[in-house]
């Protein structure tokens, strides 16, 4: 305890230095004064007396310095000395430093990069007031709209429900609503050029409930959202405002024209807030009362009580628990939706509703489909990079152990000169911390660029995902924690080992043998661990790669080569809605015909959807066919021009596809194989009649005229989906996807620019948003799988490479130490291949031990990957065999070099070296 007290006093002494110095100066003065008095009394002159007193004291300056040393540790002083010494050491062995820093930079950089993404997508709260009080209705993993009666976990809600619920509930101090779809549209400021703008429709309560104040002007209020069509105001995000107005407040009151409606800019939201959807950035918020101006013809989001398209976010009233709120919410939900079903609801609707519920989830981190898609891959990648860092630590620990042996003499001398063990350990740890921080600095630089690159790979597209990836405090803290942990992990064992050695034998020759065997055991177990981890990582990598290959080999049903997809925007073309909508279709036909005439173009057609860009689905009912579990699944619909099938390369199997006469009231459809088989297992569907909906208003209004081959609709890994195609002419509207097939070998650039030109000639207000190829669209749909497969392969190989460096280092060292022994063996007649085997044997032994640990661990953990694997068992023997073979081959190759050196030893030279 006394020691501890003195320790703290000395620590405290660091800060109170000045006062203590003054006091001691006075004490010294009185000391000298008394001494001088005595000296004078014994007969000296004043000068003599003074000189004698100072002499006897041992010098004033020296005494003051000694006092200071005792008062405060020279803790910081010694830290500074350690650091300088560490820098010198690091500088002295540039090879070791370069390898260690590079390894650490990769390890720490990868961890920081993945954590940056994880933080931005999974962890970071929204920049709103008290985000922890917010609750999201449902989990938010849905987007778009549905008109069916709620059934199961409900995630989207109608405008009517929002209003009715708000009046009755007591659990929330406020509820905000936002349309789940962000509209990408064109806006013109004060009559200027149209520019792409992202619009979110929000309730009047949105800003007040979230607690987002206006930076300028005002936010959207209840009065803007009270009467349908009355809220012609817009609130801008700070970044949009800066981009377009450079922070000029006179922008307030400016008129913004979007899809033939004018909106007045009334305010700017506080900087940093860009909506509640992570991975989307809002430019303008417009009241939900203007929904009609954004929705497609015939949709009635405000009037239809079952048109469910909104996310609801509530702020919990103080003192109410989530469980209480959940109970009340579900009770009201059942009552309110029941009242929407009319006086005599069908039994099926009642059954559906009985199964429906609302799950309240924490809403402080916002809503994100990106989170849904990337949550598991990011967590797996985080685990992978953490393991890689662990392997890197083992490697550096091994290198430090080897250096420790070299530095035995230096350390022994320092200990003989009086350095305590603690000082030595502290100094060695300073060195490893310095290495770790050098690595971290390089790693953070790597991560800075790396994380946005990764995000682009995971979610590719013409525009980068708007996600703020600037490192925040949490990322910084993570990196520092990882760095410190890393330096301890790789530094502490070698430091203790070095300081613990018996130094007398070390002093004698610098090559004592006492601790060599233990170092060997430690180094060997580190290598076994490395091999085990690399096998685990490679098993994961080869599973994911094989799954990716399966995905690439999937029969898409369409021919993805030589196809361009134009994304067109008609929002500024002022096309009519309602009865005149057929004019949009005529415009499309004009474009189709003009483009068809361009040399090199084989076929073309408009479509609602091409592949993997949205969906519209519902049940259908065929006349005379009872509903079965097989045909009760929703059918995926598409609306296409006549040339769509040949442009996509979807072959016709039976009947015919759309022709120009399919314009009348006799509605027709083309269906796919799966749909034909499910409804008509034993007969031809041609001529049969069906209608859309669970209980259609006009049963049998659509006639099947053809059957086409199955093609992928949502994703590459979907199970067979029932699909039905309708002609544009009978479902008028402007469909933004224009699919063009060109002749193999034709100049894609030239065709693309000619098509742009042709579209501009027909109607200059039809804007081309982007041009991609169908191949790119397919690749983009598996970007997530491809990213995680590529990254895990990269890190897997890196892990094996690091393990190999370890093995190479260990064996080289052991061959060097055993030179004389090997030389004697050779001299006594051992064959050189026997020596080769002698060394290789050690490597194979470590390898087998590593496998014995790594393979069972891999087998018991790969089931985590199940949902990411396409048509592949998590225990796929081929993948595991590939992993084992790769690790075995590469490590044996690494061992081969030192082994060969052993077999090439010249016995005479070897004997002389000792």
């Amino acid at each position, binding site marked *: 305890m*006394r020691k501890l007290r003195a320790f703290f006093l000395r620590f405290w002494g660091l800060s109170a230095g000045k006062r203590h110095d003054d006091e001691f100066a006075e004490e010294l003065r009185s000391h000298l004064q*008394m001494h001088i008095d005595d000296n004078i009394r014994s007969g000296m002159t004043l000068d003599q007396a003074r000189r004698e007193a100072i002499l006897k004291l*041992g010098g004033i300056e020296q005494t003051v310095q000694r*006092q200071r*040393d*005792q008062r405060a540790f020279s803790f910081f002083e010694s830290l500074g000395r350690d650091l300088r010494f560490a820098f010198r050491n690091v500088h002295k062995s540039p090879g070791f430093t370069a390898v260690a820093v590079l390894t650490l930079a990769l390890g720490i950089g990868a961890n920081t990069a993945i954590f940056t993404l994880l933080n931005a997508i999974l962890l970071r709260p929204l920049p709103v007031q008290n985000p922890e009080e917010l609750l999201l209705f449902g989990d938010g993993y849905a987007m778009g709209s549905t008109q069916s009666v709620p059934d199961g976990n409900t995630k989207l809600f109608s405008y009517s429900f929002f209003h009715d619920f708000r009046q009755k509930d007591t659990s929330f101090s406020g509820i905000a609503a936002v349309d789940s779809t962000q509209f990408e549209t064109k806006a013109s400021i004060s009559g200027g050029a149209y520019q792409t703008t992202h619009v979110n429709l929000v309730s009047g309560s949105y800003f007040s409930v979230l607690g987002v104040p206006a930076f300028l002007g005002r936010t959207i209020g209840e009065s803007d959202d009270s009467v349908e069509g009355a809220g012609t105001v817009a609130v801008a995000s700070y970044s949009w405002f800066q981009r377009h107005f450079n922070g000029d407040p006179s922008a307030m009151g400016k008129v913004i024209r979007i899809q033939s409606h004018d909106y007045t800019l009334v305010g700017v939201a506080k900087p940093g807030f860009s909506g509640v959807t992570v991975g989307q950035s809002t430019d303008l918020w417009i009241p939900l009362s203007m929904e009609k101006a954004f929705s497609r013809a015939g949709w009635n989001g405000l009037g239809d009580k079952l048109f469910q398209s909104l996310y609801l976010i509530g702020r919990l009233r103080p003192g109410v628990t989530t469980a209480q709120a959940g109970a009340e919410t579900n009770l009201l939900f059942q009552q309110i939706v029941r009242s929407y079903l009319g006086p005599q609801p069908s039994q099926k609707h009642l059954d559906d509703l009985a199964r429906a519920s609302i799950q309240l989830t924490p809403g402080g981190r916002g809503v994100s489909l990106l989170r849904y898609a990337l949550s598991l891959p990011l967590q797996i990648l985080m685990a992978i990079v953490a393991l890689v860092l662990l392997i890197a630590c083992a490697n550096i620990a091994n290198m430090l152990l080897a250096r420790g042996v070299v530095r035995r003499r230096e350390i022994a001398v320092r200990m003989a000169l009086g350095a305590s063990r603690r000082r030595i350990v502290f100094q060695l740890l300073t060195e490893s911390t310095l290495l770790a921080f050098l690595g971290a600095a390089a790693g953070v630089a790597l991560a800075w660029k790396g994380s946005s690159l990764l995000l682009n790979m995971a979610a590719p597209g013409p525009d980068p995902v708007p996600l703020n990836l600037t490192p925040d405090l949490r990322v910084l803290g993570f990196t520092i924690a990882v760095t410190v942990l890393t330096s301890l992990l790789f530094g502490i064992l070698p430091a203790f080992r070095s300081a613990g050695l018996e130094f007398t034998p070390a002093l004698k020759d610098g090559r004592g043998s006492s601790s060599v065997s233990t170092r060997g055991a430690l180094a060997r177990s580190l290598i076994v661990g490395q091999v085990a981890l690399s096998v685990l990582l490679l098993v994961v990598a080869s599973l994911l790669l094989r799954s990716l290959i399966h995905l690439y080999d999937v029969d898409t049903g369409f021919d993805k080569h030589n196809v361009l997809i134009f994304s067109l925007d008609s929002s500024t073309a002022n096309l009519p809605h309602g009865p005149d909508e057929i004019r949009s279709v005529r415009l499309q036909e004009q474009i189709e015909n003009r483009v068809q005439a361009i040399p090199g173009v084989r076929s073309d057609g408009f479509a609602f959807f091409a592949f993997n860009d949205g969906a519209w689905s519902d049940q259908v009912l065929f006349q005379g066919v009872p509903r079965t579990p097989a045909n009760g699944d929703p059918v995926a619909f598409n609306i296409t021009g006549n040339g769509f099938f040949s442009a996509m390369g979807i072959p016709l199997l039976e009947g015919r596809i759309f022709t120009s006469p399919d314009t009348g009231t006799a509605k027709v459809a083309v269906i796919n194989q799966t749909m034909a088989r499910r409804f008509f297992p034993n007969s031809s569907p041609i001529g049969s009649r069906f209608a859309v909906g669970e209980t259609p208003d006009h049963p049998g209004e659509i006639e099947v005229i053809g059957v086409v081959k199955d093609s992928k609709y949502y994703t590459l890994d979907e199970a067979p989906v029932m699909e039905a195609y309708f002609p544009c002419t009978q479902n008028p509207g402007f469909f933004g996807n224009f699919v063009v097939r060109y002749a193999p070998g034709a100049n894609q650039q030239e065709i693309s620019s000619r098509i742009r030109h042709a579209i501009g000639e027909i109607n200059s207000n039809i804007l081309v948003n982007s041009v991609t190829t169908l191949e790119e669209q397919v690749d983009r749909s598996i970007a997530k799988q491809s990213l995680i497969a590529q990254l895990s392969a990269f890190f897997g190989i890196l892990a094996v490479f690091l393990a190999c460096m370890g093995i190479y280092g260990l064996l080289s060292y052991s061959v060097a130490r055993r030179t004389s022994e090997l030389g004697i063996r050779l001299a006594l007649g051992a064959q050189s291949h026997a020596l080769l085997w002698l060394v290789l044997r050690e490597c194979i032994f470590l390898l087998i031990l590593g496998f014995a640990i790594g393979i069972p661990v891999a087998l018991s953990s790969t089931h985590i990957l199940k949902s990411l694997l396409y048509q592949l068992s998590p225990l796929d023997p081929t993948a595991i065999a590939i992993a084992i073979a790769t690790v075995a081959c590469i490590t044996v190759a690494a061992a081969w070099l030192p082994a060969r050196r052993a077999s090439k030893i010249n016995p005479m030279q070897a004997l002389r070296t000792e």
Partner: protein
Amino acid sequence: MGESEVWQGTLALMILKTLQSMGPLHGYGIARRIEQISQEQLIIQYGTIYPALLKLEQEGYISADWGESQNNRRARFYKLTRAGRRQLEKECQRWEKAAAVLARFVSTGEEAI
């Protein structure tokens, strides 16, 4: 003994003993007293007494306060605390034991020659 430096551990013991026998005393006084007791055999640099005093103070064995010397000089006076008294007792016992062992050792050595 010709050494000008005294081993820190023994210096601390000498300071504690001095304070016990003399009562509160300033640094200069302690240094003089140690020299006198050793009959000028032990020559210490007076400066070395201060770090030792500070260490004892930090450990709580002695405490210090400003006061007046015999010749009306302001000086910092040190005195034993209760913990210091206990520590002195312990140190004395240890020292006696060590000295006895060493004495026996030295005398047997002479006999053997």
